């Protein structure tokens, strides 16, 4: 009896939905507007004015699509703060200064060594060179980390390699989940990409499921700064979510708070 009631209810609800229909006129009108919008968009892209769409027009994983379409993912999504743009250039300048300085110190130490006659030449030269190299390396690291806590390593490299390091630094400056660990979804669900203050864990893209919606991630320094991100379902029992920051291709584990 109960089963019959249930089946009847199922059928009634199904039929009720079936009764909801959009009229042909409304369909034609809507389609006309969509096609016009698509044409306008195409014209804008041809003009080279592929400006970001309005906030209203963004949707679940639309940022993912946007980041796939635009060439440098850096420019997809939210405009980044000025300091983020300036920082890599400042780091590059610091690297240049440090490289020149290190080379200067090295040659100065070598010159002093060659001028000294009190000790056996080879021993003194080795000691002086090692000191100079050690000092140079320490200063290099100190300055670089002061410049913005960037993961700049091996800064005593030659100029072309230094540029590569700066590129890496720029990459790091682009997205750091630790900077924006607290993610708030549109429905109010809050997650963190750094559970218990630990480091963010990257997720293999193959594990990532459907997009659950857009979210904002708040800065950990309490500045109130936010960046956009997308939250995805994850087929992992231990982690329900994956988070992808705007302009970044990587996914990070997200734990519900």
């Amino acid at each position, binding site marked *: 009896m109960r089963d019959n009631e249930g089946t009847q209810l199922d059928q009634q*609800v199904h039929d009720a939905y079936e009764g*909801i229909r959009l009229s042909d006129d409304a369909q034609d009108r809507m389609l006309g507007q969509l096609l016009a*919008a698509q044409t306008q968009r195409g014209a804008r892209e041809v003009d080279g004015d592929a400006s970001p769409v309005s906030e209203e027009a963004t949707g*679940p994983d639309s940022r993912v699509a946007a980041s796939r379409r635009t060439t440098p993912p850096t420019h997809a999504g939210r405009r980044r703060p000025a300091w983020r743009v300036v920082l890599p250039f400042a780091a590059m300048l610091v690297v240049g200064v440090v490289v020149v300085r290190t080379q200067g110190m090295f040659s100065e130490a070598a010159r002093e060594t060659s001028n000294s006659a009190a000790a056996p030449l080879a021993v003194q030269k080795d000691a002086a060179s090692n000191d100079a190299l050690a000092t140079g390396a320490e200063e290099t690291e100190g300055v670089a980390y002061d410049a913005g806590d960037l993961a700049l390593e091996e800064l005593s490299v030659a100029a072309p390699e230094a540029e590569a390091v700066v590129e890496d630094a720029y990459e790091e400056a682009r997205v750091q989940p630790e900077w924006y660990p607290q993610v708030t979804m*549109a429905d109010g669900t809050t997650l963190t990409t750094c559970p218990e203050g630990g480091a963010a864990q990257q997720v293999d893209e193959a594990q990532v499921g459907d997009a659950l919606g857009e979210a904002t991630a708040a800065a950990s320094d309490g500045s109130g700064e936010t960046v956009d991100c997308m939250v995805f*379902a994850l087929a992992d029992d231990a982690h*329900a979510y994956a988070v992808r920051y705007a302009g970044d291709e990587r996914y990070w584990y997200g734990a519900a708070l």
Partner: protein
Amino acid sequence: MSQTCDIEAIFRRHVQTVYRVCYSFMGSAADAEDATQATFMKLVDHPRAFESEEHEKAWLIVCASNLCKDILKSAGRTRVTAMPERELADPQATDPLDTTLDAVLRLPAKYKDVVYLHYYEGYKTAEIAQMLGENPSTVRNRLRDARELLRKALGGEA
């Protein structure tokens, strides 16, 4: 399968589905049309490729559902007060379909997507859970609660 640019074909395939989802949330034809249009506009603004028509439909349903929830939330509207009187059937209505539709429209927003996906689209609990990013048990509970609410609203006639 890639339908990145064929918005017309996608629209024709899924407009009724998207409209039903939107109507079930918004409760009025005008608002549902606006939400339907906004859903497809997302595809226009961010063309994307789908793996299959099923994937396409699932994406649109979730997109429409989230969009409606956002609209309702941002407008501070509630499920019942937001509904134009015209859209709610006369309590004395005799057409059981109208009565059932009213009962569906009066459901809290959190039940609407699961009810639509289960009762109309015929998705299984696990599939709905995956689409909405919820636990299967949450979806089961919502379906059970929604069914109970519908039963009460229909006065046990179902």
